[in-house]
């Protein structure tokens, strides 16, 4: 613990005994006792099969599923962010068609379970076997391809996760933009900055401060939501793969641990990233 200085510039600082908080000390002792019990239990209880955990932690199938999990997370999140930026711009539009479409989109994707949406995207190719671009009501056709040609389980999973995410992120972005005082845009206008530059250099960096913490939560949520793409069905991500191995071995516990360890590790890395982003955009905040 850091010791307080006892004097500076020849001035003696006040020295006093701190109040003892007996309740806190007891609570801490109890917590330490419980933690030791838990850890010792996990270590000695042979049902955890730590040897199996060690055996499969770096198994090539697990590694491959881990990469797929990361790919799904990153691409779906990126899709969500891009769509959410467009949605937030559409919502601010003075054209009622733009703002209504954005609001209906958000209403729909927030209002239905992501699992249901993933099932739907899984059935998309059945629903629309051919993908045709043309005029409605039997007008001219510009382009027609079999949906199968560009559509597979990975695309379905990314669409399902990304579109659902865009609705939540749009709300977060809006709150971020609304947190900026009106005077900031007015000052930018008065300086004759072009709108786009003002958004990019003045409004966005300040909104990021509000946007990053909940978006970090969303990224972590996305990592874990990828375990639902079994609904598509997409079967290459880590929850499905560990589960499949566990079923073959009749050993569910150690493979659950393998998945949990990897999820925790990635989450920790994401949190470190978030910490640095928050620091970068926290410049100039009054302390």
């Amino acid at each position: 613990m850091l010791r307080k200085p006892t004097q500076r510039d020849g001035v003696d600082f006040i020295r006093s005994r701190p109040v003892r908080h007996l309740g806190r000390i007891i609570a801490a002792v109890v917590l330490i006792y419980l933690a030791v019990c838990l850890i010792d239990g996990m270590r000695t209880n042979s049902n955890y099969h730590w040897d199996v955990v060690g055996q499969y932690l770096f198994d090539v199938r697990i590694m491959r599923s881990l990469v797929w999990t990361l790919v799904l997370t990153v691409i779906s999140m990126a899709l969500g962010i891009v769509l959410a930026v467009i949605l937030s711009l559409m919502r601010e539009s003075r054209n009622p068609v733009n703002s209504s479409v954005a609001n209906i989109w958000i209403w729909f994707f927030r209002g239905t379970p992501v699992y249901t949406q993933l099932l739907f995207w899984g059935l998309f190719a059945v629903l629309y076997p051919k993908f045709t671009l043309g005029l409605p009501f039997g007008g001219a056709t510009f382009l027609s391809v079999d949906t199968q040609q560009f559509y597979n389980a990975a695309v379905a999973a990314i669409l399902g996760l990304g579109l659902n995410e865009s609705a939540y992120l749009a709300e977060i972005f809006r709150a971020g933009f609304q947190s900026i005082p009106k005077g900031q845009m007015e000052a930018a206008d008065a300086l004759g900055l072009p709108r786009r530059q003002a958004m990019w250099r003045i409004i966005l960096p300040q909104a990021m401060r509000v946007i990053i913490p909940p978006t970090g939560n969303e990224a972590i949520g996305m990592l874990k939501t990828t375990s639902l793409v079994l609904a598509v069905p997409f079967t290459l991500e880590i929850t499905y793969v560990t589960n499949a191995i566990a079923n073959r071995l009749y050993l569910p516990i150690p493979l659950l641990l393998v998945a949990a360890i990897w999820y925790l590790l990635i989450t920790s890395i994401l949190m470190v990233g978030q910490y640095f982003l928050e620091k970068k955009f926290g410049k100039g905040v009054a302390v």
Partner: protein
Amino acid sequence: MTSVMSTVETKPAAGAPMVELRGVHKFFGENHVLKGIDLSVGRGQVVALIGPSGSGKSTILRSINMLEQIEAGEIYVDGQRMGYRADAQGELHDLTEKQIAAQRRHIGMVFQRFNLFPHMTVIENIELSPKLTQRRHGPALRTEAMELLAKVGLSEKADAYPAQLSGGQQQRVAIARALALNPDLMLFDEPTSALDPELVGDVLHVIRDLAESGMTMLIVTHEIGFARTIADQVLFMDQGIIQEQGTPDEVIGHPKEQRTRDFLSKVL
């Protein structure tokens, strides 16, 4: 200069005013806030705008640089019609956002609440608009920005963030920032009324220096004493109308209108 210039009426004679408002009306919904404002500010002139709260002083300034859109009347800055261009048939067209931004660059504005960009240092605040709108950068720009900062007496604060400065220092940075594009006209909206009394003097000092350097200025202020010493013209405004105007001695020293006298007796 810019493409806007060429499309807007002919260039005025040298004696023409820097700012001219003709019959300007502004409504906020049902609320008729400006009721036919005529005013003009000559080149190098300092005009002070005084009057009770809610009389429309800020709205006049904000209309001049199009932070508010007026419903009727004409506003000219340096002979350019603000916000519109007339075609050969005399029909008006709205200017694009880009053209409006270009017009605003001739006008510096200082707000009551400073509105500095909190995520940028002092020097970054000042350099931002020349950087983005004139594509300037490097040591020449830095030297110029530092000169502006010296002008407002804050050379040592170049790398501070706005939150680390007092209100008076922030307002002086805001003035330097507004000067960075070499505006033809400066608008001040109660630049000292958000400040602690002991900080007001430094800001007024900077504004006075600017006046002496020949800058054209339109200043909304509650500092009547300051208005009296700095202004060439004083306008007293009430209920959306300019009730009285003249030299400081006429309007503040010997007001003719009862409303002016009532107002001055409250603030002096």
